[in-house]
């Protein structure tokens, strides 16, 4: 639906047109070709002019009047257009068009039409102004006027309706038949048009008539809707007419009538309107089409899209901007991004082909994706060229999702079907298999291929078929649980339960069956067996004495059989009992249950069985097992009940007894944790009692085991013993072993078993009882463990024990006790005498007295004593002895523990020694100690303290706190008191430096350290401290400080002096050098020049020395300025500057630098080091040898720069090597060095946190190795 552009349309329009601005001049802004042709004008001449000006110009000069007339009318028309915003037309305007280059002109008749162009605000922005050249027509009219006669002849046959209206009232003068036909009237001649068509007046046509009559201008109406009132009584007719009013002139040229031409175009108009309508509807339709639809031009610009497209894209792209597709993003089905110019629409238009159903994914700006089918159709123009296209987008996302869901569910369904444990099959209408699942194949024992397509009956024998055919009439019904018989491939009969559902297609036509089949062959067999059993039971019941009864519902009477009478303790004559009589026999406790049972039977009419007791007339109780069954009449109504009853009293009683005894046994076993088992020799099965199951951690049901299963519980370590024991003692034995229960815990069991013999004396069964003895075993084990642990503990603590038994008069030593006494471990039983023989003679009396005392008090006693071992070793022992009593409270023995405390005794001894040493040390160190007991107020000073304070040693306990204070130097007293106060609060040691004044006036400096001792409440109870005479130290210290200060000052002054001296020294030197250069320049005397040169050398030397001194002082005065140093560049610079020295001639310099890491240091100092070392190497090089070299090598890493400067110069003798770094040290008087260079180097290197080493051999050469710290991280600031 590509829409042609306006300007294009305008240009190619066959109607001469201009576009005007709605301003006062109505400026022409555009003119199309045909207009320019018509007016013999060019675009340049026309565009930009006011329309009136242009019109005036197109008229010949002589015809100004007509031009003015036309302009007036046009102006009115244009103003009307602007005002009404409606098109306006000026028909048949006479235009006199001048012929360029002459005064001639042609007369043109034009229809002038002005159409307003409105903007959104409904303002006129432009006026489309067209002029339709109707001259030809006009000329024709003229001709026809002139040939009126011929017209009159002709008009009868004219294809259009014609009439001549005369005079100002428009009286019909002539009409042709067609007109009469058109208006549907005759006899209108002589009548005014107003009379004939009164309705026309309100439609405005008479105004046009009047106008034509007055102005002589032709009026043309196209497709004018005219309502004609043909008959007063009839409904007016609407007609579309093309008509023209032409003035009819007399010979003088005056208008005296109007010629009307009218063509009925109703049909054409109506049909066109219909088309238009349908087109509009078509657009409407497009807009509301539920399918996303859009159109593009050939360049892909989107020209149109409908609401559905907006919805699909989730966006409304701008018309004419977005290309090929309005979707935000597109992807192909692989998920790859699809660019717009590759989308189906683009391809379709580019390749000029219709595409259908290309699928792609469109993404909306909100990120949601849609699956879309595309249907692009290219549109072709009349020449067959593609001009654009339309694309329809079908959103299949939901379908797709549904499809996927369906596929998923189908898959799931298939899975279910395939793995189902039921046979599933689908049959067609002819009962041929169209689907079977695996299970069905299994049931029939055929493969799927063998089954599909076969008829279901072919898998049945005759009987099965017959049964199945019965059901075929129920084709369209649901079958439930029908038993079907099949024959398998191997001929086996399979019974199945068959449920089916009919299947219908959409039209409700039966199309087959879906069935589920369960193999019930096994059930069938079981049923068969049961039936057999029942039959046998019945027979056996007959044989047994069973009572039976008949109950007649009508008479409400039961008739007992003889046997039943006997059971009920009735005589055979009493065989008729009514219902209530019978109930009176029932045991009250069973009555309710039985009645309930009867009620169920009444409701279901089924056979019921029941157990109940009866009480006979003699009071004895009997157990009855009974069964009752309704007997139905022909109509299926119950008419009576038939029952049997069996006296099961004996059996019941036996049963009960058994239950009771078993219960008791079980209880007994449980209480004793006693399990039992029995082994059946024949079956080799062991049966466990409940309690045994519990012991083994098994469920009570899990009580039967094979022998090997049984043995598998035995603890592996005990298995051998158990099996041996079993083999050895087949006739019964006692056993203890461990088992591992089902839950993995270990248990100790103790058991006993014995064989049961049959009559032949063969073992038929072995029975055993078992007891869980884990707890007691565990206790034993624990005891053992604790004994071991005690032993270990004794060993570790060198802690022995002994026991003395009064009864046996024996003393038993523990292992450790033996060890303490130096006895073998096995020699642990002794008499008291033997023990006493160990005791140190000095301690023997004490030990004996303590023993005696304790024998009386029977209390625990503690004593220290020494023993002498056999090898003479003396041991210090600590012992504790306690009496042990029997149940009656009488002492039965003594228990003692004994510990070897020799080591701690020794330590004590050492402590004593060290205290003595301390005292000595205090004396030597002038260190005194003291203590003050606050409770007693007594101070105790050590000898040295007395000596420090100049107090006689005897007065060491006579100094009170107040006394002490008098010693303190008055200037320090305040500080001391404050310190004491602080110390009283502090928990740590306090210290103070203060002066004291002795009685003789001597002043001493002391250093004291002390602390307060506190009781448990934290209250100070004493003060202990040490005092040192530091007088000498103090004096020395003060002297040192003073010296330092002076030294520092001297240094500073010296530094300042060096600096200013060197400066003042250099100044005149500079002058001298300046003057020398003049002499060098001016003088030509050889000798003078020679002398001057010598002066210059001396001055230079002096200058160098001063510079060195300056450099040294700078090194000391200035801080480091760390920066990155380009090592290689710096070395090369220094070498290059030194190369120019005279002495450097012929020396080969070799530089090799490896900068692994950037090196950071102080550039100036680094330079000074390099300059000094390398210039030294040059200066002290040999003069004569060839092959002289100086090698400079440097390697920098993260930590250091290693710089090696090696030469093969004169070298340094070993005795000088250590001195070369001293200030003013010079080796040779020959050289002109000052002896300060290497000193500065060393100082500087130290400042840069480095070191320097020298290796040299006289006459061989020297190697200086410098290591400088890499000061990269800036923290390494100047030292």
């Amino acid at each position, binding site marked *: 639906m590509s829409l042609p552009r306006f300007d294009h349309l305008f240009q190619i329009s066959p109607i001469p047109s201009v576009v005007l601005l709605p301003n006062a001049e109505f400026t022409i802004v555009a003119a199309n070709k045909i207009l320019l042709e018509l007016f013999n004008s060019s675009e340049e001449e026309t565009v930009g002019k006011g329309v009136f000006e242009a019109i005036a110009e197109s008229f010949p000069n002589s015809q100004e009047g007509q031009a003015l007339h036309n302009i007036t009318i046009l102006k009115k028309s244009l103003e009307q257009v602007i005002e009404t915003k409606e098109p306006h037309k000026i028909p048949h305007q006479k235009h006199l068009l001048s012929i360029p280059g002459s005064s001639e002109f042609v007369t043109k008749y034009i229809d002038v039409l002005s159409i307003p162009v409105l903007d959104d605000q409904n303002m006129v922005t432009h006026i489309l102004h067209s002029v339709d050249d109707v001259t030809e027509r006009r000329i024709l009219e003229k001709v026809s006027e002139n040939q009126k006669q011929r017209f009159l002849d002709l008009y009868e046959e004219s294809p259009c309706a014609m009439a001549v209206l005369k005079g100002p009232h428009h009286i019909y003068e002539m009409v042709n038949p067609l007109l009469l036909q058109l208006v549907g009237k005759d006899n209108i001649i002589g009548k005014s048009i107003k009379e004939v068509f009164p309705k026309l007046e309100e439609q405005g046509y008479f105004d046009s008539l009047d106008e034509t009559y007055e102005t002589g201008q032709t009026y043309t109406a196209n497709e004018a809707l005219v309502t004609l009132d043909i008959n007063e009584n009839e409904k007016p007719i609407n007609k579309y007419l093309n008509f023209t009013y032409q003035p009819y002139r007399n010979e003088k040229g005056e208008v005296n009538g109007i010629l009307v031409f009218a063509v009925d175009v109703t049909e054409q108009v109506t049909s066109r309107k219909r088309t238009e309508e349908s087109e509009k509807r078509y657009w409407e339709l497009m807009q509301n089409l539920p399918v996303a639809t859009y159109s593009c031009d050939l360049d892909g610009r989107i020209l149109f899209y409908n609401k559905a497209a907006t919805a699909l894209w989730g966006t409304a792209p701008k018309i004419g901007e977005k290309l090929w597709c309005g979707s935000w993003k597109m992807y192909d089905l692989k998920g790859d991004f699809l660019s717009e110019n590759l989308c189906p629409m683009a391809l379709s238009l580019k390749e000029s082909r219709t595409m259908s159903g290309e699928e792609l994914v469109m993404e909306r700006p909100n990120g949601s994706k849609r699956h879309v089918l595309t249907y692009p159709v290219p549109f072709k123009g009349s020449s067959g060229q593609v001009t654009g296209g339309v694309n329809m987008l079908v959103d299949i996302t939901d379908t797709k999702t549904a499809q996927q869901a369906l596929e998923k569910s189908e898959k799931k369904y298939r899975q279910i079907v395939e793995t189902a444990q039921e046979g599933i099959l689908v049959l067609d209408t002819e009962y041929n298999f169209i689907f079977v699942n695996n299970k069905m194949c299994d049931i029939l024992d055929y493969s799927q291929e063998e089954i599909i397509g076969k008829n279901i009956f072919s898998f049945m024998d005759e009987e099965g078929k017959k049964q199945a055919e019965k059901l075929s009439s129920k084709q369209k019904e649901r079958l439930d649980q029908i038993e079907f018989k099949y024959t398998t491939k191997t001929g086996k009969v399979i019974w199945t339960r068959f449920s089916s559902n009919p299947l219908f297609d959409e039209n409700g036509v039966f199309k087959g069956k879906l069935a589920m089949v369960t193999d019930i062959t096994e059930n069938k067999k079981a049923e068969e067996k049961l039936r057999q059993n029942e039959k046998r039971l019945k027979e056996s019941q007959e044989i047994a004495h069973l009572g039976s009864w008949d109950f007649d519902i009508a008479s409400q009477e039961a008739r007992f059989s003889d046997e039943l009478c006997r059971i009920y303790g009735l005589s055979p004559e009493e065989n008729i009992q009514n219902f209530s009589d019978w109930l009176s026999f029932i045991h009250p406790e069973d009555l309710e249950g039985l009645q309930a049972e009867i009620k169920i039977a009444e409701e279901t009419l089924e056979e019921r069985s029941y157990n109940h007791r009866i009480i006979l007339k003699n009071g004895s109780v009997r157990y009855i097992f009974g069964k009752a069954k309704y007997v139905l009449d022909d109509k299926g109504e119950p008419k009576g009940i038939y029952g049997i009853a069996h006296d099961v009293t004996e059996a019941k009683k036996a049963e009960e007894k058994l239950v009771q005894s078993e219960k008791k046994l079980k209880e007994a076993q449980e209480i004793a944790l006693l399990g039992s088992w029995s082994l059946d020799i024949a079956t080799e099965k062991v049966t466990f009692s409940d309690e045994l199951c519990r012991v083994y951690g098994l469920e009570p049901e899990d009580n039967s085991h094979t022998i090997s299963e049984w043995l598998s519980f035995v603890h592996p370590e005990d298995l051998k013993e158990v099996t041996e024991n079993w083999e050895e003692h087949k006739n019964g034995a006692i056993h203890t072993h461990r088992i591992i229960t089902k839950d993995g815990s270990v248990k100790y069991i103790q058991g006993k078993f014995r064989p049961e013999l049959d009559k032949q004396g063969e073992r038929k069964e072995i029975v055993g009882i078992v007891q869980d003895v884990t707890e007691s075993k565990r206790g034993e084990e624990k005891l053992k463990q604790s004994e071991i642990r005690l032993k270990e503990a004794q060993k570790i603590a060198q802690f022995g024990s002994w026991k003395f038994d009064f009864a046996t008069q024996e003393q038993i030593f523990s292992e450790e006790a033996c060890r303490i006494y130096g006895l073998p471990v096995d020699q642990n039983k002794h008499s008291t005498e033997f023990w006493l023989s160990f005791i140190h003679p000095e301690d023997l009396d004490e030990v004996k007295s303590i023993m005696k005392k304790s024998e009386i008090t029977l209390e625990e006693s503690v004593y220290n004593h020494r023993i002498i071992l056999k090898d003479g070793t003396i041991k210090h022992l600590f012992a504790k002895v306690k009496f042990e009593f029997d149940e009656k409270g009488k002492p039965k023995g003594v228990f003692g523990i004994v510990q070897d405390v020799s080591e701690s005794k020794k330590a004590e001894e050492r402590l004593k020694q060290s205290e003595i040493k301390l005292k000595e040390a205090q004396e030597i160190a002038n260190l005194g100690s003291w203590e003050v007991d606050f409770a007693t107020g007594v101070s105790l000073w050590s000898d040295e303290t007395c000596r420090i304070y100049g107090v006689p040693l005897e007065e060491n306990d006579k100094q009170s706190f107040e006394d002490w204070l008098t010693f303190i130097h008055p200037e320090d007293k305040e500080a001391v008191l404050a310190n004491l106060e602080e110390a009283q609060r502090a928990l740590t040691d306090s210290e103070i430096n203060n002066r004291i004044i002795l009685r003789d006036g001597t002043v001493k400096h002391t250093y004291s350290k002390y602390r307060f001792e506190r009781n448990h409440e934290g209250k100070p109870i004493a003060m202990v401290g040490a005092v040192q005479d530091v007088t000498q130290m103090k004096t020395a210290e003060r002297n040192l400080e003073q010296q330092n200060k002076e030294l520092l000052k001297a240094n500073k002054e010296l530094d300042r002096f060096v*600096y200013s001296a060197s*400066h003042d020294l*250099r*100044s005149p*030197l*500079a*002058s001298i*050098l*300046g*003057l020398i*250069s*003049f002499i060098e*320049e001016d003088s030509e005397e050889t000798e003078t020049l020679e002398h001057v040169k010598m002066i210059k050398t001396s001055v230079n030397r002096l200058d160098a020395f001063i*510079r060195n001194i*300056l450099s040294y002082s*700078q090194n000391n005065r*200035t801080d480091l300025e760390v920066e990155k140093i380009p090592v290689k560049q710096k070395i090369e610079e220094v070498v290059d500057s030194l190369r120019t020295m005279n002495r450097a001639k012929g020396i080969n310099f070799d530089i090799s630098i490896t900068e692994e890491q950037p090196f950071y240091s102080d550039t*100036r100092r680094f330079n000074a080091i390099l300059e000094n070392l390398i210039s030294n190497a040059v200066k002290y090089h040999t003069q004569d040898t060839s092959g002289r070299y100086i090698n400079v090598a440097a390697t920098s890493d993260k930590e250091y720069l290693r710089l090696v400067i090696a030469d093969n110069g004169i070298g340094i003798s070993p005795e000088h090597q250590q001195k070369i770094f001293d200030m003013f040290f010079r080796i040779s008087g020959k050289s002109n060095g000052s002896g300060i260079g290497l000193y500065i180097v060393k100082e500087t290197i130290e400042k840069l946190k480095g070191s320097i080493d020298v290796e040299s051999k006289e006459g061989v050469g020297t190697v200086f190795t410098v290591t400088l710290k890499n000061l990269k991280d800036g923290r390494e600031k100047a030292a």
Partner: protein
Amino acid sequence: MEEKKQPKFETVMMIDDSSIDLYITSRLIRKNNFGQEVLQFSTAREALQYLQENQKNIEKLPKVIFVDIYMPLMSGFEFMEEYDKLSATLKNYCKAYIISSSVDDKEVILARKNKNVVAFQEKPITLKFLEEISKDCA
């Protein structure tokens, strides 16, 4: 050997308390045709006064100024402080050099930091140095 060449600079100013140095430098300048006229001042104050009086009179201003550091009353740096207060015309025209027998880095740095100082030169002034200046000013 001595061609009569156009001197490199019209006027050179020398400020040094050492009359020998004044002599040496002025002789060097004249001999090597570096300046038509050498204005010699033995105190910085006098030199400053001269500059102040002639700061609008370009013909009388020196193209190059050599100033010593160590001088009594007003040092070379003190002179530079006052110099900074002179007119921009003057400062744009004159090129000041600090000349010293000192090799103290602090002073070198101080000279380098001073925006009115073109360079620092160690005494004695040499021919080479003069050539460099003329090259810079050319």
